[in-house]
């Protein structure tokens, strides 16, 4: 089965196409989607262990020889990300059964999610820079559908902004690929890496590196380019927001990590320094936002930006502990952000508002929800032994090893801000004077709460079992530290 690594892309795509045929049959839509995601998850597990056993899987589409055709490459980093994004999508779909209203369900909501998963998995798997652009567009097109679905006024307004920003960044992506092609003359990522090393990274390549940082930074929301994210993400309903928050920015972050560890490794004094400074500024900006708002959605959304900064800081250090920590933190963030958004969604559904000042006293009526939220919040802030701890520890250790004392201190300080911001939600929403709330019917509440608990449980397991995960993570970071492994897997024994 040399095509195994394509299955996480193909299965959602195939079933999404089938689902387009009967949009009105809601029950079939639900269960086919759920079954598809389970199947994808299973295939991804098989792929994970195959990658662990046999090393990087690579295939070139259409039986072309390697640098000419489109390569698909599944190394440990990408397969881990594919696994976690499929998992998150599965749980969000489960959550959507009780959350999403009838109109959206019968207007291509589930095909949209499956197409988005296709794009996300494809962007993680591809080994061709232009093909990455294509998969980005696939996921963006379906995210346009998801963000505007329902057609409320605020959604229409914010989606215009969102689409405009993404169209501009796509055009910039094409421009960047054009420059890269004119200098290097190839599009295969492994081949680009070889050729850049041959020409010894002249100035123009550094320009391209900064352009890539801009392009992926717009999608991944780094410091000066995050402006569109908070208001746009606040518009769609919670399950869509959870998917966006957990996955879309991470695709941009993954692309930055991939390009900066595979292509632009020779002029680290400039490019990685720039990346580090931007990462720290991102953390600062996110922290300010997370403390400034009284809107629960906004607080968690600004926490996305903080996490992006933390991951990129780790990626910019280019030593083993920091990169390993980045991978740890990336997957942790996908899981915990999904869980937090789902829990926030329950709180909003109960209180009917997203304004913290209008909430209070939920701990009396929904105690389990409160304690689950507290665990998730501690996990986000990185309290040992929960999941954020290992990643952050390794990133900070890498920062110290690379003599970036101040950056590491910022990371540590940001943990406090994160903790403060999420605990604020806990204090305002769960403690204090009880506010009159509408009781959810218990079946709906269970439908919302169980997926969220499952996700929190997975993230706790991820934190507790991190010792067991170290071999996987070190495989992932080894590929990033040493591009020759990747190149050898794609281009053959050369």
């Amino acid at each position, binding site marked *: 089965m040399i095509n195994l690594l394509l299955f996480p892309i193909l299965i959602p795509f195939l079933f999404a196409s089938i689902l387009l045929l009967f949009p009105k049959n809601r029950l079939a839509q639900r269960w086919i989607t759920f079954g598809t995601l389970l199947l994808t998850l299973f295939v991804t597990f098989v792929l994970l262990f195959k990658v662990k056993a046999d090393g990087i899987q690579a295939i070139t589409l259409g039986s072309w020889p390697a640098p000419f055709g489109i390569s698909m490459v599944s190394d440990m980093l990408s397969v881990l990300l594919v696994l976690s994004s499929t998992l998150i999508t599965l749980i969000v779909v489960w959550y959507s059964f009780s959350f999403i209203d009838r109109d959206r369900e019968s207007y291509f909501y589930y095909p949209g999610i499956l197409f988005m998963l296709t794009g996300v998995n494809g962007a993680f798997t591809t080994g061709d820079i232009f093909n990455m652009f294509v998969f980005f567009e696939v996921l963006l097109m379906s995210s346009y559908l998801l963000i505007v679905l329902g057609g409320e006024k605020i959604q229409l307004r914010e989606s*215009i902004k969102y*689409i405009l920003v993404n169209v501009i960044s796509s055009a910039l992506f094409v421009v960047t690929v054009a420059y890269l092609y004119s200098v290097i003359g190839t599009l295969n990522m492994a081949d680009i890496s070889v050729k850049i090393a041959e020409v010894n990274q002249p100035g123009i390549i550094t320009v391209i590196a900064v352009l890539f940082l801009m392009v992926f930074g717009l999608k991944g929301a780094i410091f000066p380019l995050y402006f569109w994210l908070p208001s746009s993400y606040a518009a769609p309903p919670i399950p869509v927001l959870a998917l966006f928050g957990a996955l879309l920015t991470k695709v941009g972050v993954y692309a930055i990590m991939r390009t900066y560890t595979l292509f632009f490794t020779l002029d680290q004094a400039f490019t990685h320094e720039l990346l580090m400074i931007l990462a720290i500024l991102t953390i600062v900006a996110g922290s300010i936002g997370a403390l400034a708002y009284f809107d629960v959605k906004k607080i968690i959304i600004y926490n996305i930006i903080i996490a992006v900064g933390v991951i990129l800081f780790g990626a910019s250090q280019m030593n083993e502990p920091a990169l390993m920590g980045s991978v740890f933190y990336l997957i942790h963030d996908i899981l915990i952000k999904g869980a937090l958004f789902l829990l926030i969604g329950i709180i909003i559904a109960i209180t009917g508002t997203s304004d913290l000042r209008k909430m209070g006293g939920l701990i009396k009526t929904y105690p389990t929800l409160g304690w689950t939220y507290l665990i998730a919040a501690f996990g986000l802030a990185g309290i040992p032994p929960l999941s954020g701890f290992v990643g952050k520890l390794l990133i900070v250790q890498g920062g110290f090893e690379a003599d970036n004392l101040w950056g590491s201190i910022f990371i540590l300080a940001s943990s406090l801000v994160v903790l403060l911001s999420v605990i604020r939600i806990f204090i305002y929403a769960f403690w204090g004077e009880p506010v009159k709330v509408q009781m959810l019917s218990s079946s709906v509440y269970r439908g919302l709460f169980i997926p969220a608990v499952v996700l929190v449980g997975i993230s706790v397991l991820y934190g507790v079992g991190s010792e067991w995960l170290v071999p996987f993570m070190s495989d992932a970071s080894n590929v990033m530290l040493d591009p020759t492994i990747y190149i050898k897997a794609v281009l053959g024994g050369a």
Partner: protein
Amino acid sequence: MEIIMSFVIGFLFMAAVYLMLSKSLLRIIIGTGLLSHGAHLLLLTMGGLDGDAPPVVSPGVSNYADPLPQALILTAIVISFGVTAFFLVLAYRSYQELETDNMNLMRGTEDHD
């Protein structure tokens, strides 16, 4: 030839930025269309403009153009076609819903709406 193309691309980008900074939503969409045209043209130019014949291998033709940029452009055109069409539908719907296509009147934050 590359010089002329550079000027054309620069002009397209200039016009696109001007249009995207205006208030009317329709102008913004036209601006994004121009922007992607400029990007496609840049991709074509950056692939090198040597070769007189079209990028099709046929008997007796040796000086054909590099086919890869053209394939990339076709893909990019398809994508930008889809995005622009979607954007137009969205603009139309939001014009119906919000009854304006002026971006200034569409502005608003969560505090006042």
